[in-house]
């Protein structure tokens, strides 16, 4: 059981850092940004390049990659999304898919389609009968620190107040003299940087490939939906909930409850759980919203 909780923490850390960015941009700009997933992949490739080819120390490589990806995100906004203010949310979603395709194929063209690995050898650790590695600890610690930092940025700085004002009423915020343009750019920077960190952690744990976006996409969007789409910390909790559901369903031996035979949900249903949760929550959304209003 302890093992299941530890697994949950690790996976939700990786997914959560990426998911908060999707929720943040959703809350301010009101559209689901598919390109965000690709920021994670681009960030991971940048970290890989800095670390393996330019021999930066790993930590520095990830930080630099985060800053660079933040810059890329700001550029993408300046070139594309800032000029699409009057387009419907669905339209922006389609464009964001176009941006994702472009970034993905650029990565594929530069680095080739084969996968790459960082080749770390983390130390093994053990608590009770639960096992994990030093890298897992780093993932969880980084995820927690990232959440604390984000909370600080959003709730204790003027940037955060401005962003939240923009999120709740963009027109009002603009008339009250909030420099919306600059704030939105800053938001894109944060999104890009967080995605890059999440993507790097993901790649450090497994491997790096241009098509890893499709593996990240479903759990991230499921987490964001679970958290209520525009709720930044809801997305983090959503990641936690989704990860727990996946690990419980796959890891718990349901067969032993009823008989001597062991049976748990076959592991290939992992993605199924993510998509299923996403669809169910979306379908229940109108009812949940109504109840909240009634209360």
């Amino acid at each position: 059981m302890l093992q299941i909780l530890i697994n949950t923490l690790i996976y939700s850390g990786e997914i959560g850092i990426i998911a908060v960015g999707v929720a943040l941009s959703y809350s301010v700009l009101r559209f689901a940004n598919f390109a965000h997933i690709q920021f994670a992949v681009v960030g991971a490739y940048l970290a890989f390049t800095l670390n393996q080819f330019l021999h930066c120390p790993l930590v520095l490589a990830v930080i630099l990659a985060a800053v660079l990806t933040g810059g890329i995100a700001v550029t993408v906004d300046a070139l594309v999304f800032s000029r699409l203010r009057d387009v419907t949310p669905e339209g922006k979603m389609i464009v964001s898919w176009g941006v994702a395709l472009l970034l993905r194929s650029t990565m594929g063209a530069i680095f080739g389609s084969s996968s790459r690995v960082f080749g770390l050898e983390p130390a093994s650790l053990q608590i009770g009968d639960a096992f994990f590695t030093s890298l897992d600890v780093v993932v969880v610690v980084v995820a927690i620190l990232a959440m604390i930092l984000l909370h600080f940025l959003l709730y204790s700085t003027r940037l955060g107040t401005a962003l939240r004002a923009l999120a709740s009423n963009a027109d009002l915020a603009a008339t009250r003299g909030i420099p919306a343009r600059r704030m939105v750019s800053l938001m894109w920077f944060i999104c890009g940087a967080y995605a890059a960190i999440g993507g790097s952690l993901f790649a450090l744990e497994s491997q790096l490939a241009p098509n890893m976006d499709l593996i990240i996409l479903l759990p991230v969007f499921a987490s964001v939906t679970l958290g209520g789409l525009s709720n930044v910390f809801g997305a983090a909790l959503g990641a936690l909930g989704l990860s727990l559901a996946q690990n419980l369903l796959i890891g718990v031996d349901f067969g032993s409850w009823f008989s001597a035979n062991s049976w748990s949900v076959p592991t290939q249903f992992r993605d199924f759980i993510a998509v299923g949760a996403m669809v169910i929550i979306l379908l229940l959304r109108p009812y949940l919203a109504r109840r909240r209003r009634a209360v």
Partner: protein
Amino acid sequence: MRKSLLAACAVVLLSAGWGETGQAAEDAIPVGVIANLTGTDVQSSLDMVHGAQAAADKINASGGIKGDKIKVIVEDSEYRPAAGIEAATKLFDVNKVSAVLVFGGSSVTLPIAEMAQPAGKIVLNTSASSAKLGDYPGTLYSTLPLDDIVGAQLGDYVAKEGVHTAVFIVPNNTFGTGLMDKAAAAFTAHGGKVLKEIAYSEGQPDYRADLQAVQRLKPDAIIGAGYGDDTRTVFRAARELGINAPWYVAYPSIFAVEDPKWMEGRLMGLDNGGLDSPLAKTLSLQATKQYGAAPRPNYYYAYDAMTLLGLAIEKEGTTAADIKKGLPEAVKGYQGATGSIDWDARGQRINPPMDYFVFRNGALQPAPAP
């Protein structure tokens, strides 16, 4: 007006380009290679292309086949059936090839065989291993043994090693589950007990959740199949969970070992034999020099396929009917990079030389047969 002029120019240029590809095929023997240059498992796919090219280069360097050079035309299958069929249609129709070498899973190779059969073309399979591939006699020939043979041998091997209970861990694809089914049948036929079958989704960052059941079930051994970087992640999960059962796998050479010290003596398996032949060693050195890394087994399967095709063309001629007649003769007495090749009436490999390996001192070492 200017726009339509431009469009007309583009059409003329395009058709000129097409005409050119048609003509280039005249003075050489065109051979098609279909591989997934994008999509999944690209590295093994590229190794396969290199192997085919190496064999063609060797034939061309020694003067070609009766003076004609072999021209290799590579097409992308994107690891999708539709794109594979499109590639095959183009090769058969535009480049007028009589035979194609195919890399890709069964979901790509089977549809290509399905369309090559009525078209009277030849398919040489260098990577797919579904037992269904045996249903195309006279069309599809394999230079690697299919799952039914390797799976059965794996099951036998594990049972003979004195293993009574086992858990299967394979990737959730045709290769993984196909081998698992055949190996499990052979293993249980010897009285072995399969405690659980785990088919993991590829590309995940972590497989601890998938492997947790193994920790609980405490099997004598783990029977596995897999390839590439995912296997590294799977091994890491097993090591972290403290699962110390030995691994018996098919094709250990395509596994990525994660921690050599932990793996010491723990990874065993059977692989296609013949790779310690002088020919295979020369090829390996040559490929390492050319591409910077030792090639995966698909390199040798493709090398053998292209060489056999060359022999068949030399014996009978360049049409598909000639090749169909020539291939069974070419294979007789052929000592390839993957050993001697015996085909059954369907053109599928039987009695393949199998080598047994155990992982020791950081590399796979030959082990005695059971």
